[in-house]
């Protein structure tokens, strides 16, 4: 009967896995002695492992930061892509903002700096931007729903 063909790859893997498992049960002194026998400096090995751990932590934190940035950018893009019921004419936009700030002075305080409270220094672009922000907050829909508050 022919001898069963050996699977050397599987055998090697089993041996190496058993050796990896055996390290867990070895004492620190044994592992250090083995490193020395293999011509390694235990202090350098330990330093390298600490460096690997540190790099992995930093990479993970950076990944989380990148993910948070991407989520923020997606939210901002989504807000910018939305269309709000903003009047086409500049004087109507100024009038709408005036109405909102009069009715909701707390929003005016949050959006406008003191010198801009009278709107004199606000450009049309500033007003457009304010109205877009109010749209994102859902305020414009409220004014639109109630007609002319």
């Amino acid at each position, binding site marked *: 009967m022919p001898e069963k063909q050996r699977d050397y*790859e599987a055998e090697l*893997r089993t041996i*190496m*896995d*058993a050796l990896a498992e055996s390290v867990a049960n070895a004492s*620190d002194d044994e592992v250090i002695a083995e490193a020395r026998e293999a011509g390694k400096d*235990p202090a350098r090995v330990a330093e*390298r492992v600490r460096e690997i751990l540190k790099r992995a*932590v930093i*990479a993970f934190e950076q990944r989380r930061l990148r993910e948070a940035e991407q989520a923020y950018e997606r939210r901002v893009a989504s807000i910018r892509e939305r269309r709000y019921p903003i009047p086409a004419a500049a004087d109507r936009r100024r009038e709408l903002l005036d109405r909102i700030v009069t009715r909701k002075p707390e929003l005016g305080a949050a959006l406008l700096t003191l010198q801009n409270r009278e709107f004199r220094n606000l450009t049309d672009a500033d007003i457009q931007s304010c109205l877009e922000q109010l749209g994102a907050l859902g305020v414009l829909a409220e004014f639109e729903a109630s007609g002319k508050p």
Partner: protein
Amino acid sequence: MKLESSAKWRIRGLGRRAAGRTEGDLLGEAVTATLSGERRWNKTKVSLVGHLLGVMRSISSHWRRDFDPDEEPTLESDLATTTGDGGVLRRFDLVPSAEPSADRVLEAKERVEAIEQAFADDPVVSLILEGMREGMSPADVRSELSLSQTEYETAMKRLRRKAAAVATGGGSDA
């Protein structure tokens, strides 16, 4: 030190399946998996080192399966399609063979035989290696040979020391 040593053996066990990854990559991935919560560390039951050793075991096993996706067999009949001229296209014919290449087998053979040779005059380690060859787990080998935990670990220590010298390759020693 244990982390580095264990990672080194895992990478050597993967051989070419490590696909160029080092013990540093394996350890780094174990840390990332822990930080992300993918692998939970039960602090009350195991030390951080013990936890990372377990995570590295699991990740290296995943890497091996990723390299050999045929461990989840796909039937060729599921993939065969009829061509426009009525012939049968066997998609397996288009895929490189998943069989281990001759040089991979030869490399593994040389390394296994070098280890066996190194322990030719050590009956306990030789028997442990034989048990492993039969596919027995370390616990089964120990039980089959009626070795105490200490006797087994002492033998494994001898195996680690010599194997480190004779079975290099498949990973970085740096």
